[in-house]
């Protein structure tokens, strides 16, 4: 963890709304994946979403930058409603960064090119400037010396940190993490989590789907538990882990922590 040890629980959370989801429903064919989801995310919040597999948690955060389309209800990101309007989608996507379970780095581009691709082509930033930004964030995730290698030459943990840097290069206001550590070997999980913690310390709004309960306790200001496509329980991490209310939550926690 970072040396200056900021107490995350004391960090201010503004009243400004970052993401507003109301009565959102989604179906895959006949299958009802997300059922009447309501959720408000304020700027600076650090939310951990957990739940059994197939509970719709990944789908939920993929809806927020419209990698998935919702069929009813409303999603408003930073004042922009997600509709079929391409302009709105572009606007939201350039403000929302996303980190994937399988990194999804572009294997034919160097690390530096991975980080500058979107700033150059979407933000229309001069190349030099984009490269400077990229190097800044690469040093932040502690791999500036790998900039001219290809993704295939890096370890899984390094690749995931590059993926985080790549997202940050777009200077997003909100970051989505879709199980960022699930595909990593145990010894590499910590380096990625550390990067995420330092991001939280800078006040980034984060929505994180993860099973790392230690991370949730240390960083999150609230935990959301989903099952069968709906939000079953949400609470502060302390309450959530020490005093779960719903039977489903208790069962899930006993399975994941119990051993």
């Amino acid at each position: 963890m970072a040396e200056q040890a900021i107490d995350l629980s004391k960090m201010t959370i503004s009243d400004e709304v970052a993401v507003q989801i109301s009565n959102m429903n989604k179906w895959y064919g006949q299958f009802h994946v997300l059922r009447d989801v309501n959720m408000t995310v304020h700027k600076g919040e650090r939310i951990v979403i957990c739940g059994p597999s197939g509970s719709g948690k990944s789908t939920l955060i993929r809806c927020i930058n419209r990698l998935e389309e919702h069929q009813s209800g409303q999603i408003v990101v930073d004042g922009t409603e997600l509709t079929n309007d391409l302009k709105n989608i572009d606007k939201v996507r350039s403000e929302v960064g996303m980190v994937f379970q399988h990194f999804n780095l572009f294997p034919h581009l160097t690390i530096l090119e991975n980080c500058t691709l979107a700033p150059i082509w979407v933000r229309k930033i001069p190349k030099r400037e984009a490269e400077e930004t990229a190097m800044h964030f690469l040093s932040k995730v502690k791999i500036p010396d790998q900039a001219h290698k290809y993704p295939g030459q890096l370890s899984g943990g390094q690749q995931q940190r590059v993926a985080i840097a790549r997202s940050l290069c777009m200077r997003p206001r909100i970051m989505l993490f879709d199980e960022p550590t699930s595909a990593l070997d145990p010894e590499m999980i910590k380096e990625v989590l550390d990067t995420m913690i330092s991001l939280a310390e800078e006040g980034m709004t984060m929505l994180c789907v993860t099973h790392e309960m230690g991370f949730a306790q240390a960083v999150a200001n609230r935990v959301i538990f989903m099952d069968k496509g709906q939000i079953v329980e949400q609470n502060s991490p302390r309450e959530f882990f020490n005093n779960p209310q719903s039977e489903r939550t208790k069962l899930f926690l006993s399975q994941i922590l119990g051993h």
Partner: protein
Amino acid sequence: MTEFTPFVRKDMLEPRDPPGNQQGPIAWARENLFSGPMNTVLTLLGILAVGWLALHIIPWLMHSVWNANSLSECRAIIAQTWGPDATGACWAMVRERWHQYVFGFYPMDLYWRPTLAFLLMLVAIAPVLYQSLPRKMMWFTALYPFICYWLLWGGTLWAPIVVLAGFGLFALAFRFAAPKLGVPVSAGLGLLAAAVWWLFVQTPLSTALNGIIPLSIRDVDSDQFGGFLLSIVIGITAISASLPMGILLALGRKSDMLLVKSLSVMFIEFIRGVPLITLLFTASLLLQYFLPPGSNFDIILRVIILVTLFAAAYIAEVIRGGLAALPRGQYEAADALGLDYWQAQRLIIMPQALKISIPGIVSSFIGLFKDTTLVAFVGLMDPLKGITAVVRADINWKGIYWEPYIFAGTIFFLICFGMSRYSMWLERKLKTDHR
């Protein structure tokens, strides 16, 4: 903690159906056919194409004539029944000439022999295709080539039996020598013994035996073979012979021994670098130069040998891909278990490499079967060019072209499509133990 209110759900929501405008055939069509202007244009073009085809093909098929003695008679019947401008298919040609498409010029009264051979082939192939059948059936599979040869070409039954004895000799020599001398040496010894047997003992022995107990059926000459009989004989023989040869070539190419490796590479690259037609011409024109003076053997056999060599080179490349895809650990594990080279190949490496290569091997087989039509150019009666040319040369059927090509093409399609579906099925079945 002002930013959210703690929340616990008491009653779980039941799944609902998607809103009405998002299900049913209309929603499906909107999703799949008219989701945008581009998509709508494509759909309309597609419907137009299907409609145009249907408009031309359906009336033609509906106006089929099955009973006629010539194309002009066919046309007369069509004009009489459906009006002077109607077009129609004249399947009467197929009805009159189907036997040539199937058997070529094989004697009519002996059609039962290829038919029986074909049915027995299905029995022989079954245990290879379906692992669930009893393994004992493989014995019949091993015997089948000899039975098939005797049924198709006729002559004395003793000839294939004595050839079979040669293989027995090979197996015997191999079995006794292998533990002491290793696989390559004993295989060489066995081959030598068998070769001596076939070259010097074969003919006198089978003649003598036939003299004592005559077991002969009528001879049929190679030039009477034709149609799908010919395609299947060449195809199946070449397919079954090219697989083991391809495996050996692939192993040769991966060998550490420079000489073995470069010989294999040269062979494979040469065969893959020239068109099959030139190899077939080699069979018909050049083999007479390369063999000892006076030796002259059957053209079908010569073609089969060249087609086998051709297919083997392609299969070797496919298997090489499969070998390359195997993790190094497999080789090391086999070495660590103390298996020798041939045991490791047989028990560990090949089963996996072949499994990976199944799609490639089957598509080579499909290519090979399609290529059997090229034997028309060395004077054999393949179903496409050979037989169709014969039919079209007949004064009664002069000018017919859609029907013979559609007929022959459909049979090829069914066989090749069947093979590719089988390989997909097998791939799915074998996938269970791979991620």
